């Protein structure tokens, strides 16, 4: 049988079945586009993630996919906000603006949203490569070890940090960006004074770049993030000991370790990657990450924008990259603003009022907290992002946007 006879022709092919893929699929299917989503694993598939969604993401899910069924939530089913802990043992709790937000069970939540999108899902089908022909894109994949071929008018890479589509379009990209390792272990709880309504985050350079903990299904998650190359177990153990010593958190032996790598950085320095030709990149693969590494809400919104751009391109025959890059600018602003020191100082980029929480502290305490935040930020100095962040912040302040010439 020839390639043409054996190929599945679709309007749009989405690689990935996470939130960005579901949102993108929803927009495409609503507009009547024949849409297929590829997933390398069997669905529903596991996803290592805190599962704490921002209020904006919560709104998106409700407005686009309907009320959340209980099955897609962990226990506790919601988080009220974030508690920041500092080395001086100061703690600041901040509630989310929109009230408590869902604690998603990603395995089922992603699958639920994907099913609700109405797209055709091909799971256990691994994307292996693509060829942009100018008028369409030929996509190669494998299922049960056998080749499967697709021909799509547009391809949307929403594959998260695996960057499968990104690697096919920009083979060198993954090698050029710093990679973080984010690992988490689950512990039985013996005694945990940490408030289980909050996501806990430590501004403590001694513990690592990204240290968090929260309750889930009767266990406590202890997570650490660090630059690739460090030792996860040692880092994790250090945090467990710190929690016991400083917060009197007594946990049982760890279970079910999970490690993922994260392309945490493009949103800080406005170095997003949005694709080339008829291939769009969206969600975490494009570099979207909110503050506290919450990636789901910007994945949902950027995924929806990718879908809208494809629909617009179908209807107008205009260059899809131009449409996408124009539309995605608002999401870039929302996401990068969260890391922008000038926006943090003079604006209100987060969905929790950190400034009001600081104001509630005594002046001396407040100064101490700010000092400790700056001390923590120094941990990122080797990445040499400081000047880039500052320059992007200035551009944003004076032009109202982040320069699009830094996007790939």
């Amino acid at each position, binding site marked *: 049988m020839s390639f043409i006879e054996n190929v599945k022709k679709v309007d749009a092919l989405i690689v990935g079945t996470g939130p960005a893929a579901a949102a993108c699929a929803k927009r495409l299917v*609503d507009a009547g586009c024949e849409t297929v989503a590829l997933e390398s694993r069997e669905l529903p598939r596991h996803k290592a993630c805190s599962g704490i969604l921002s209020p904006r993401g919560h709104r998106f899910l409700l407005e686009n996919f309907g009320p959340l069924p209980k099955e897609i939530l962990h226990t506790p089913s*919601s988080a009220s906000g974030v508690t920041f802990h500092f080395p001086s043992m100061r703690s600041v709790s901040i509630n989310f603006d929109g009230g*408590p937000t869902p604690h998603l069970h990603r395995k089922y939540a992603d699958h639920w949203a994907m099913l609700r999108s109405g797209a055709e899902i091909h799971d256990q089908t691994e994307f292996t490569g693509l060829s942009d022909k100018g008028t369409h894109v030929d996509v190669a994949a494998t299922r049960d070890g056998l080749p499967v071929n697709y021909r799509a008018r547009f391809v949307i890479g929403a594959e998260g940090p695996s960057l499968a589509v990104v690697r096919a379009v920009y083979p060198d990209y993954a090698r050029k960006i710093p990679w973080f390792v984010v690992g988490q272990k689950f512990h039985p709880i013996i005694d945990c004074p940490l408030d289980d309504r909050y996501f806990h985050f430590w501004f403590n350079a001694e513990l690592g770049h990204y240290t968090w903990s929260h309750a889930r299904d009767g266990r406590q998650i202890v997570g650490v993030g660090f630059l690739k190359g460090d030792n996860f177990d040692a880092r994790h153990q250090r945090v467990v000991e710190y929690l016991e010593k400083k917060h009197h958190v007594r946990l*049982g032996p760890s279970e079910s370790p999970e490690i993922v790598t994260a392309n945490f950085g493009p949103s800080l320095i406005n170095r997003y990657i949005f694709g080339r030709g008829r291939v769009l990149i969206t969600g975490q693969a494009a570099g979207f990450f909110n503050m506290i590494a919450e990636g789901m809400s910007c994945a949902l919104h950027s995924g929806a924008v990718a879908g809208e751009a494809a629909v617009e391109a179908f209807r107008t025959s205009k260059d899809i990259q131009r449409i996408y890059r124009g539309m995605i600018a*608002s999401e870039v602003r929302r996401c990068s603003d969260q890391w922008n020191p000038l926006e943090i100082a003079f604006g209100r980029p987060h969905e929790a009022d950190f400034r009001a929480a600081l104001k509630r502290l005594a002046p001396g305490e407040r100064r101490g907290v700010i000092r400790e935040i700056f001390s923590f930020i120094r941990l990122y100095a080797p990445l040499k992002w400081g000047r880039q962040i500052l320059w992007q912040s200035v551009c944003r302040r004076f032009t109202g946007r982040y320069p699009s010439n830094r996007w790939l």
Partner: protein
Amino acid sequence: MKGSDISAFAAAARVSSPAAIDHVAPDSLKGIPRRQTNPARWNGKGWNEFVTALRARNIEVCENRQTCGFYSSDSGGLAYGMPHGITLAGSAAQISAILKQAQLHRVPVTVKGGGLTTEGESVAFGGLLLDMRGMSRVISVDAQNMTVRAEAGVYWHTLAEVLRRDGLDYLSAPLNLTSSLGGTLAVGGIDINSPRLGCSADQAVSLQVVTPTGEIKECSETLNADLFERVLLGYGQFGVITEATMRVRKFTPVTMHYFYYGSLREAMEDLQMLVREDAADYCGILTIMDKAVNLLVAFDSDGRERAFFAGWRKRLRGHGELGFGLRMAWHYALRPWRVGEALYLLGRKQELEPAFNPAHFMEDGRIIDRAVVFGNQVWKFWGGRKMVIPDLATSADKFVEAIERGNAVCKKYFPRYTLYCVGIKLSGRRERYEMSCVPPDAAGFAYGCEFEPILGDTVYSREYLQAFKNEIYEIGVEMKTSYYRFGGMMKGYIRRAFGDELVEKHLAMKRLADPAMILNPDVIF
């Protein structure tokens, strides 16, 4: 207790502790009810049986994917949905048969006229899309009783052309004359003569309606009055309007005058004064941002024009073109860094002026066809490929504040925008005004303002435009106003704006009238 026992106990306690509030329920966002405003596609159950039944009755249903694709969005261009099939409306009997079968097979039916909705109200998220443009005849003109009977799918500009042959004209119509008659009656229809004549829905004398259960009924203020009041301003929930008898008037050319303001507040206050005192036959405000605020005033007769200039002109704080031009020149001379804005205003003026005074539609300084001039030009220069027009409908007291707050939101989101403001005369306290664009606290007159970004070539994501619209609508919730467009994607605001009690009352009426809830299912409820 051993460590493992404690851990198991603690885990059980955490899991089983009852939650007083469901924090992830649709109404959990700080008490803001959130709904699925971008509906899931209907599952198609019963579709084949439904289509078979219709075809057995010689009703054609087009299921061609390409054809359905033409109906996938509306003028708003933000909501997308694909019907399973499309039927071109042919007669009340045909629609009756469709709705009877739809009730039986529980198939959603979405009715579309001109498709000038902006929030996806005329977009079918599956099911049947009934295209009313198949019923677009003007049936009869009664010059003696000054009425016209027309099918509901007729465009306003067609209606105007037919009436013109008899020297007649419609009373008030929406600014975009490619709206259909039936669609307009279901939502309102506001013109710059609405301060004098009310909205289009108030010009209806009688209607032929096919109820959601398929009964064909004639209704008016004296016959089936309940149905008449429910269907007018009813957002298509209580029946399909198939024919309407509308009041008409003698056709007259229009004399137009413009007054320019640099202050929104002054212009709005002056507009309210003119509306209150019935000083002009037509009046409204169109702006370019909040920099050039244009109060337009027009007259059907020389007598009214003379009376205006004798009694009201001197009370207006607006300037003539020359005076305003000099003020603007001085304003921007002191702010040279805003030269871009000044050039934009100048360019816009040069574009608009000839368009609103087209030589081929002018005679002795009068516009001889306001339908063409307003209908074409307003939308040519104010509309875009995507119509993003959130609005606020307020009582007189709240009007100025609502506009000033909405203007601040426009500034935050867009460099260029326009506001369109009018007054609407209310004809007493009518049932039709309940849960409509008429704010509950309005007496005598209501006021409306549309906030429309001029998008130009810039592409914006739906989320960005939606965020803009939400922020305008939040003003309405805070100020307890109403909206002209509250269905479709904005229906999350319905309960917040009108309250649960009123919405439940209308929902109960809807359930009674439409047991399977099949008619325009994603618009309001």
